């Protein structure tokens, strides 16, 4: 048979094995590692130079050096706080043990440690909150997007609402969310803090739209022929979604999810600052109010951390997309 196909994957490996010249490989490494590294170095020098020339009422603007010092400080504080906490519980246990020695029937209790949340505690809180808000949004947005993509009628009905709520700033939602949560969430033994729910819902409200819109576009744009295949086979609706719609729309769904997560992470910091909910936003606000000579440096640490975490979150989504997507050869960026 004259129809010989060389699979792209195979061709790729063959190209590797057949020996790319060493010089070319070196050039590639310079391009992949050297250039980004050089970019960062130049930026750091520029930053330090500019920072030295900016004086504020709280002292000089922090350069990379001060930021590094403050990161070390923040880590030391975190460790100190943890030691304090351990000691606190140890003391209670010792005291309780003594009490029980004297009187085996004595009632003993352990009080929770209520020390100050450290920078690292705030990071964890923020991550936890954004994950929760994002999860709520994804669970609503993906199915809604699929339904909108499948039914033109529904899309026309829902589209105006989406278009109106999409550009709303999270901070406009925040007071409403706060009031609604405090009115409706009145459990005896609350599983979640109210402040946590406020932030999470605000994040969710802003995360919804990019995913809804991209999923809709992805689903509506499925190859007509593939839809016709499904019609000829008479696939039931659920199987149609599962076998045809979802695999086709995966790239667009993930584009939406990544945009949503990035929006959610930005929104969260703002919401925490404004509402004094625990998290990185509150850390920044507290440092600002604190107004010590170290504050700007510490805020800058938070700024860099927020950027890094945002970057890592996006990479994480890309990894998941690579796992879920059928098209392993697609270039994801």
């Amino acid at each position, binding site marked *: 048979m004259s129809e010989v196909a060389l699979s792209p994957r195979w061709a790729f490996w063959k190209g590797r094995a057949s020996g790319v010249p060493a010089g070319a490989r070196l050039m590639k490494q310079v391009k992949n590692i050297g250039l980004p590294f050089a970019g960062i170095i130049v930026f750091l020098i520029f930053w330090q130079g500019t920072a030295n020339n900016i004086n504020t009422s709280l002292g000089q603007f922090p350069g990379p050096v001060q930021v590094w010092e403050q990161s070390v400080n923040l880590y030391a504080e975190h460790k100190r706080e943890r030691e304090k906490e351990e000691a606190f519980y140890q003391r209670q246990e010792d005291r309780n043990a003594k009490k029980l020695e004297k009187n085996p029937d004595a009632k003993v209790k352990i009080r929770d440690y209520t020390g100050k949340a450290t920078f690292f505690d705030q990071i964890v809180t923020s991550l936890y909150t954004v994950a929760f808000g994002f999860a709520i949004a994804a669970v609503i947005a993906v199915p809604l997007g699929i339904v909108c993509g499948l039914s033109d009628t529904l899309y026309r009905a829902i589209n105006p609402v989406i278009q109106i709520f999409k550009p709303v700033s999270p901070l406009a939602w925040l007071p409403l969310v706060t009031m609604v949560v405090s009115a409706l969430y009145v459990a005896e033994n609350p599983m979640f803090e109210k402040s946590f729910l406020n932030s999470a819902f605000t994040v969710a409200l802003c995360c919804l739209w990019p995913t809804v819109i991209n999923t809709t576009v992805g689903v509506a744009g499925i190859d007509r022929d593939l839809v016709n295949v499904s019609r000829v086979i008479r696939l039931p609706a659920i199987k149609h979604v599962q*076998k045809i719609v979802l*695999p086709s729309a995966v790239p667009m769904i993930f584009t939406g999810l990544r945009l949503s997560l990035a929006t959610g992470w930005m929104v969260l910091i703002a919401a925490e600052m404004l509402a004094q909910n625990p998290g990185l936003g509150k850390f920044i606000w507290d440092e600002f109010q604190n107004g010590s000579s170290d504050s700007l440096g510490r805020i800058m640490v938070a700024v860099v951390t927020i950027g890094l975490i945002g970057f890592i979150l996006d990479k994480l989504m890309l990894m998941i997309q690579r796992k879920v997507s059928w098209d392993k050869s697609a270039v994801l960026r």
Partner: protein
Amino acid sequence: MNNYLDISGVGIEFNTESGPFRALQNINLKIDKGEFISLIGHSGCGKSTVLNIVAGLYHATEGGVILDGKEVDQPGPDRAVVFQNHALLPWLTVYENVGIGVKEVFRKSKTRAEMREWIEHNLELVHMDHALHKLPSEISGGMKQRVGIARALAMQPKVLLMDEPFGALDALTRAHLQDSLMEIQSDLNNTVIMITHDVDEAVLLSDRIVMMSNGPAATIGEILEVDLPRPRERLALAENAHYNHLRQQVLRFLYEKQKNPADRQKRGFSATSDKASEVSKLKRDEAA
């Protein structure tokens, strides 16, 4: 007998932005069981529209289609379609692409093991049993179209609808696939409607060639009976006078009675397309 598939008085009008557009008018065609019909005509004459109406993917504005005593009102596996660009699901393997149809059609009548055997049998028919677990992206265009044919055959359709099945393939691969199709057809004797714009293909494969006039409001122009004995041999036919006569009749319909609308617009330009060279060849043949 002559009414296994009955297309009667079919016309269709599309709503476009510049008002209604009448694509087809008064299409009447009766097809026997086991007959191989080719639909041929210039691009844009509505061949695919006819096929889509039979498939149930489009609804005729007037008239209707009756298959084996039942009216066609929606798509279904009894009218399996082979699409021009194969339309395989890129995330499923060759085996799964055929399997997705088989699992729906024979859900109640076949066991799991019988289904597996049936899927493999159909892929053997098209000579693709060596690549069961490859993805469509890992096989060539011709192979993809073989799988597309296997998927349609595996649904055991009453009528097999092929929409320019070999149009996107190179000439050699196309010839291979035409031979395969004739081989399969001699075994299964399916009822087939195939759209093509390749005159040789139409004459080689068909029992009847249905030639369509140009749109708008396209309809059936002429029907040509191809009474060449089977099995047909590509090489032997090339020298066969009757084959060439039939071929000329199709060409004459296409290039004299129904001039290509695109050609009419660029009148005066020297013809360089292979269609034009076919016409000049035809003229030479006639002069000889």
